[in-house]
């Protein structure tokens, strides 16, 4: 659990993060969104003390994050920096091995971890391990940056726009991988992004920042249902609202008894995908199946339209 308690950061007269309080539950994904310069990176960096707050306190699992030396704290917290920040004089494998090396892991364990992570991020370990960062594409560099942050299996992972340079296909894959890793290790993730689709896709909770303040902090559905400020509404987008609601709800949740023809949809796909399927195939209903393939009834166009309407 990360408790951010009335934290403020000032540079001279300039208040960059303004009295922010929020509690991040363990094993959840929190996404921080907001305009450029709103203080997202600064907030993130105060968690691992790359930036020392002017006022306030941050506790990790109840312990003040100033209780141990900064460098030890940072070895426990994964940090994927905005714009990868790979060490240009070290190979990809050496880059990923940074924190395990600092923690004194055995070589065989480090090697295994490096290979596992490279494979996970679709980079062939034999080809890419010995390369230098400048021999990689921007997207590959970014994936290595994320792999480096994950290498020591940290409980807390801070990610600053980690997927910005990825093409849509690799990005979608990287997001799925991140969620899989998160579920597997029970990592608490705080992620900054400018991409609202990404935010809605990944987040258990979203924090909206503007001018150093957190305007709203809550589950995605709450942001759509009850935006706390005009800025939140603008960020979500008037024309996007119904689709956002569908995007964060599961097809299974709209299932009702009955039959339907054609290709079924998995219960944990989003309702947005279900709607797209229906529209594209010109059907009124489609069958839903559970993760194990058991039929669960059907999803109708009508039900989806109801789900997409402004909540009462």
């Amino acid at each position, binding site marked *: 659990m990360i408790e951010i308690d009335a934290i403020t950061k000032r540079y001279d007269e300039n208040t960059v993060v303004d009295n922010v309080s929020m509690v991040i539950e363990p094993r959840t994904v929190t996404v921080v969104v907001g305009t450029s310069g709103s203080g997202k990176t600064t907030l993130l960096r105060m968690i691992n003390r*790359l930036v020392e707050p002017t006022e306030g306190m941050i506790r990790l699992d109840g312990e003040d994050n100033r209780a141990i030396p900064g460098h*030890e*704290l940072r070895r426990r917290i994964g940090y994927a920096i905005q714009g990868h*920040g790979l060490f240009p004089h070290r190979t990809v494998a050496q880059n990923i091995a940074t924190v395990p090396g600092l923690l004194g892991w055995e070589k065989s364990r480090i090697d295994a971890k490096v290979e596992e992570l490279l494979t996970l991020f679709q980079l062939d370990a034999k080809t890419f391990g010995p390369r*230098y*960062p400048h021999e990689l594409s921007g997207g590959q560099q970014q994936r290595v940056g994320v792999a*480096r942050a994950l290498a020591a299996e940290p409980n807390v992972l801070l990610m600053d726009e980690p997927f910005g340079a990825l093409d849509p296909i690799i990005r979608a894959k990287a997001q799925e991988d991140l969620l899989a890793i998160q579920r597997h290790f029970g990592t608490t993730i705080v992620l900054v992004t400018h991409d609202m689709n990404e935010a809605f896709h990944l987040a258990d909770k979203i924090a909206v920042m503007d001018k150093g303040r957190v305007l709203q902090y809550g589950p995605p559905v709450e942001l759509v249902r009850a935006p706390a400020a005009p800025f939140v509404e603008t960020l979500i987008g008037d024309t996007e609202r119904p689709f956002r609601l569908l995007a964060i709800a599961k097809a299974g949740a709209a299932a009702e008894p009955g039959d339907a023809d054609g290709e079924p949809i998995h219960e944990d796909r989003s309702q947005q995908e279900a709607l797209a399927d229906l529209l594209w195939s010109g059907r009124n209903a489609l069958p839903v199946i559970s993760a194990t393939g058991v039929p669960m009834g059907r999803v109708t166009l009508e039900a989806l339209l109801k789900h997409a309407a402004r909540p009462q």
Partner: protein
Amino acid sequence: MKAWMPVILRGLLLVLLVAFLLSPGSFEPLLKPLVQQNAPAIYNQGSLLDLTLQHLRTVFAATLAATIIAIMLAILVTRPFGAEFLPLSRSLVNIGQTFPPVAVLALAVPAVGFGEKPTLIALFLYGLLPIFENTLTALTNLPRSVMEAARGAGMTDLQRLMKVELPLSLPVMVAGIRLSVTISLATATIGSTVAAKTLGEVIIAGLQSNNLAFILQGGLIVGVLAVLIYDGLSAIERLLTRRLGIT
């Protein structure tokens, strides 16, 4: 084909230099036309090879000391606790540079006597600035994201210096050493005026006896040494730079 030309040329130059130093006599016919009859065409007041080695030794010792001190200074003033010494150390090193070498020699002789010592002092002072400046430039211009990543990964100050800052600064530091060595190779000749054993002896002997051949061979040996060492260090620098993917 073209890429090999400079390498071959330098190889030839090196072979020529070694041949001349090992057997200067064989080159006598070439230099004979430059001197009056009966005057020696090849330096005859000592071994050219010995003088060259001593010249190199003096330059090497002075540069080594200058490198160590300059890098240590640059590291010191780029740490948070040393930042206030930055302007001071800059001006100290600059003063070392504005002093003419002859003046340094003249001042050093009464203090440490004739011989190699005053030369070493002058070369040391002269070598400091380029290395210090370059190391300072490198250490203060490291990519910010890389430095942030190093801190974010949990490296201590010392680990950051050793594992990230110094390796990344190496090419620019080598460039400083290269400048320093080249200056020292030339400046060391002046050391002969205070009885240091350097190739300056050959040139001075030539000036005193009006022997063009002496002046030429003394000057050429220093020149060729400078070219070869300069090129060698440039090659190292390019290698380092390429590995960092800066080009």
